[in-house]
């Protein structure tokens, strides 16, 4: 390929990287728009559910009210109510809902494009297409869904059970970017600038001088600013529109009520806080509450009665996007580095390297997806508050709080102690495995050896869960002559019982390794020792055991490491119990419990990282030890 061709490829790569960056930014913004649409639809559904009365008990004497254009912001006077409401009815009074739905569209300052469906029929705009019949069914299952560019949220009956309709909010198309001229001008301009910078960089053969990296990063930062402002806008719009809804609700909540209480309104905004407040601006503003960024708006719900509506400021948690965008932007420089390498490298080598990477790619991809990505995610989890129980829709960054909490938790230390105690079975099983291997090698030949070896190995290859269940029966009181103690439910014996079981299960595997190790010791050493006058005992301790040392260390090291990772036996047999003492709580089970029991994924991530560090220290120590000993073997 000519130089011109390489330069063109470099420019293309840079332009593609820039386009990807801008595309990701746009996608992020539309995500915020969608999030806003769903949130707004949910709030609107809650508002309608709260303010729409049930139908009157007798056939409703319909007051002649033609399509009423409800002028909002009516003074405190109670809105029109069907006289005797049927108490306990789960249905809505449809005419009233029709009115309310249409009123939504004319609320001053209301920015959302909203539609309310009763059944599948649109209420506000009668000519709009109805929902499909299965839409309601799917809403009943999923709560909300995205359909034809509109966020649909289920509208449930007054009892909160059946789905009787839906609220739809259409997000606005993504607004123009932060650059002058909007996307239409900024996008081509940005691409041309970036591409030009890349071409210069390529010709000058230095990414540093060309300023291309700077251009690419600048683009990423600009895109990030755009995303951040979109996040801020979505929070602000929700606050603005919800403020209007709250004011409406304050006047429309069905009687009997003399004064609207805060409690009546909090149901409308479950994912935000509603507090008594001071008079303030109606425009959203930012305050720090307990060190956390909150978006706040003041709501006037009656004469002199102010509320403060607080919610999480979404833009404070957009940092992740910055990294994603920077990564996207750096695709360009990486591609140019690759092209530069390809230009310099002879064709044959280039070909071989490409093929080599081709072969590496599947394994590398597997490693990235199934090893690297989970590790990175665990690290991400560990520094965020991430729990399903949390009220907040976002997962705030909490630094090392999770780690501190894990270290403060007495259960962590109990688990660590139990794990360490449990791993003490390993030296015992290693000694036993060595003894069995030596005995088998000394006394067994032919099929007898094969049979015994298989018998010892069998527990090791059996399904761990099946083994666990069998031993559960064995340990139950009275069975197999193990006495009347229920081994697993007594705090003093439960851990011991697990250790015994593990001993039984692991001796075989370790024995096979020892047998292989014994086989590798040349017979000549033992013959020489016999002639030199060594007894069988001396031969073992002076010759066999020292020569087996690397094998022994290997078995011991891998045994202890896997003992530290014990989970299945604990999970199947005791679940960390007996409970008050947590007698068999071990580290991996603790991680599991934190994640799936307490639903605290952030804490579980922190705990598993701590556990990882512990294992790393153990492994490195043992590898060092092994490395020293393997030399002369």
């Amino acid at each position, binding site marked *: 390929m000519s130089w011109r061709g390489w330069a063109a490829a470099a420019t293309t790569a840079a332009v593609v990287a820039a386009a990807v960056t801008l595309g990701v930014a746009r996608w992020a913004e539309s995500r915020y728009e969608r999030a806003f649409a769903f949130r707004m639809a949910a709030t609107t559904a809650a508002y309608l559910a709260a303010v729409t009365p049930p139908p009157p008990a007798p056939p409703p004497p319909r007051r002649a009210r033609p399509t009423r254009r409800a002028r909002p912001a009516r003074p405190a006077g109670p809105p029109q109510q069907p006289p005797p409401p049927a108490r306990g009815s789960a249905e809505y009074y449809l005419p009233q809902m029709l009115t309310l739905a249409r009123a939504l569209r004319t609320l001053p300052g209301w920015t959302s494009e909203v539609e309310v469906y009763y059944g599948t029929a649109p209420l506000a705009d009668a000519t709009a297409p109805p929902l499909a019949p299965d839409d309601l069914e799917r809403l009943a299952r999923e709560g909300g869904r995205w359909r034809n560019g509109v966020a649909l949220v289920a509208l449930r009956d007054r009892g909160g059970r059946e789905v009787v309709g839906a609220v739809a909010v259409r997000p606005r198309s993504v607004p123009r970017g932060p650059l002058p001229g909007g996307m239409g001008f900024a996008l081509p301009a940005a691409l041309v600038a970036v591409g030009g910078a890349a071409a210069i960089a390529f010709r000058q053969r230095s990414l540093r001088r060309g300023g291309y990296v700077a251009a690419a990063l600048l683009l990423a930062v600009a895109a990030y600013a755009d995303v951040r402002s979109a996040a801020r806008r979505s929070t602000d719009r929700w606050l603005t529109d919800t403020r209007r809804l709250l004011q409406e609700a304050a006047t429309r909540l069905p009687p009997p009520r003399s004064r609207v209480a805060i409690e009546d309104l909090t149901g409308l905004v479950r994912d935000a806080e509603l507090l008594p407040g001071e008079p303030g601006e109606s425009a959203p503003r930012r305050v720090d509450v307990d060190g956390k960024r909150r978006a706040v708006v003041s709501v006037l719900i009656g004469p002199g009665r102010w509320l403060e509506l607080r919610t999480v400021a979404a833009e404070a948690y957009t940092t992740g996007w910055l990294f994603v965008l920077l990564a996207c932007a750096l695709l360009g420089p990486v591609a140019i580095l690759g092209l530069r390498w390809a230009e310099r490298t002879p064709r044959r080598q280039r070909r071989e390297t490409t093929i080599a990477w081709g072969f590496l790619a599947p394994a590398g991809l597997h490693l990235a997806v199934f090893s690297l990505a989970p590790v990175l995610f665990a690290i991400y989890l560990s520094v965020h508050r991430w729990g399903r129980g949390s009220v907040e829709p976002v997962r705030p960054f909490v630094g090392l709080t999770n780690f501190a909490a894990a270290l403060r938790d007495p259960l962590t230390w109990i688990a660590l102690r139990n794990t360490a105690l449990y791993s003490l079975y390993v030296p015992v099983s290693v000694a036993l495995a060595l003894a069995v291997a030596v005995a088998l090698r000394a006394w067994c030949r032919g099929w007898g050896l094969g049979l015994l070896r298989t018998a010892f190995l069998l527990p090791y290859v059996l399904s761990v869960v099946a083994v666990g269940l069998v031993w559960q029966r064995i340990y139950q009181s009275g069975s197999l002559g193990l006495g009347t103690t229920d081994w697993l439910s007594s705090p003093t014996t439960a851990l011991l019982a697990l250790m015994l079981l593990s001993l039984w299960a692991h001796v075989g595997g370790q024995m096979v390794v020892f047998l292989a190790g014994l086989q590798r010791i040349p017979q000549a050493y033992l*013959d020489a020792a016999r*002639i030199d006058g060594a007894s069988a005992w001396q031969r073992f301790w002076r010759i066999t055991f020292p020569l087996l040392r690397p094998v022994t260390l290997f078995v011991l090291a891998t045994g202890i490491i896997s003992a530290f990772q014990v989970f299945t036996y604990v999970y199947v047999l005791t679940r960390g119990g007996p409970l008050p003492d947590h007698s068999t709580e071990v580290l991996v089970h603790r991680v599991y419990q934190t994640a799936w029991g307490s639903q605290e994924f952030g804490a579980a991530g922190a705990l598993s990282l701590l556990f990882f560090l512990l294992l790393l220290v153990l492994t490195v120590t043992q590898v060092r030890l092994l490395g020293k000993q393997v030399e002369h073997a």
Partner: protein
Amino acid sequence: MASVTLRGLSKVFDDGSQALHQLSLDVRDGELLVLLGPSGSGKTTVLRCIAGLDEPTAGDVLIGERVVTHTPPAERDVAMVFQNHALYPHLSIRDNIAFPLEMRGVADAQIARRVAETAARLGLGDVLDRRPDQLSAGQRQRAALGRAIVRGPQAFLFDEPLSSLDAKLRIELRAELLALHRSLGATMIYVTHDQTEAMTIGQRIGVLHEGRLRQVGTPAEVYEHPADVIVARFVGTPGMNVLQGRGRGTAEGERVIEVGSLAVPVELSTYEGELQLGVRPEHVGLCAVDKGVGNADVLIVEPLGSETLVHLNAGGQGLVARLPGFLDVRVGTRVGVKVDRRRLYLFDAAGAPLA
């Protein structure tokens, strides 16, 4: 020091193969006897039976006057040097040499003294604290020797101790071994498949073939008067030429043996019929065509400097001639063959010597 006596030793392995057949041997006190045989001939099995590592199926092993057939190796007081030295890899050379003494509960001070003596005798003083893998091949074999001689055993057993060394080192250590034997005056049984080694170091050589002892004698006896065809073929480099032939009388009243394209006159009046004619390569000469006992084709010429080996095809029978210096013989040409008539060996069809 003691003699080693084997009486009717037989060994059948678990898989049914018989390694030794009724083997009897008397190794005199202070003698260096070499057991020579091709691989698989049972040499090592003999050693292992003497050492006690294997138990014979039948027969007895005596060390001195003591029957030790079923005595464990530790109580036989013999030392063995293995083919691959078998030095304990995790112990220093000092600990390796001291090992047999430690196992016998010798006092520490005495151990130190004897290890030092042995090391000095073998020139290992500088490497005592190294591990076996830090030594050269020669040093390793010396250390193995040291481990054997340090406790002054009744007899030494050597199981091809030099076969894993390169040729130069082998010759060097061979001389050392002989010197050691002289100075210790020890009974030694030395197993090898290398007949040069056997000829150079053995006071007597026992030729072993397929578990049977074919001949025991001094190197000269074994070379000059082989007990049968097998010994004749095996001893010597290259071994004796053994040709299949027929004896008959000629019109001139002479007796000749016809082997392939050769007709060798012999002074053997009584025998007619199938027999085998042996002649060592150095007693075969080349001459002009039709001037010798017959003609042969030259197959291969191997010039070795001091001598040249010429491989011949005499009417389908292979024959090697060893001739001094370099020769101008072309491969593929036809030459006449001479033999030294005084140095012919005659064997019957079964391989036993005639007359």
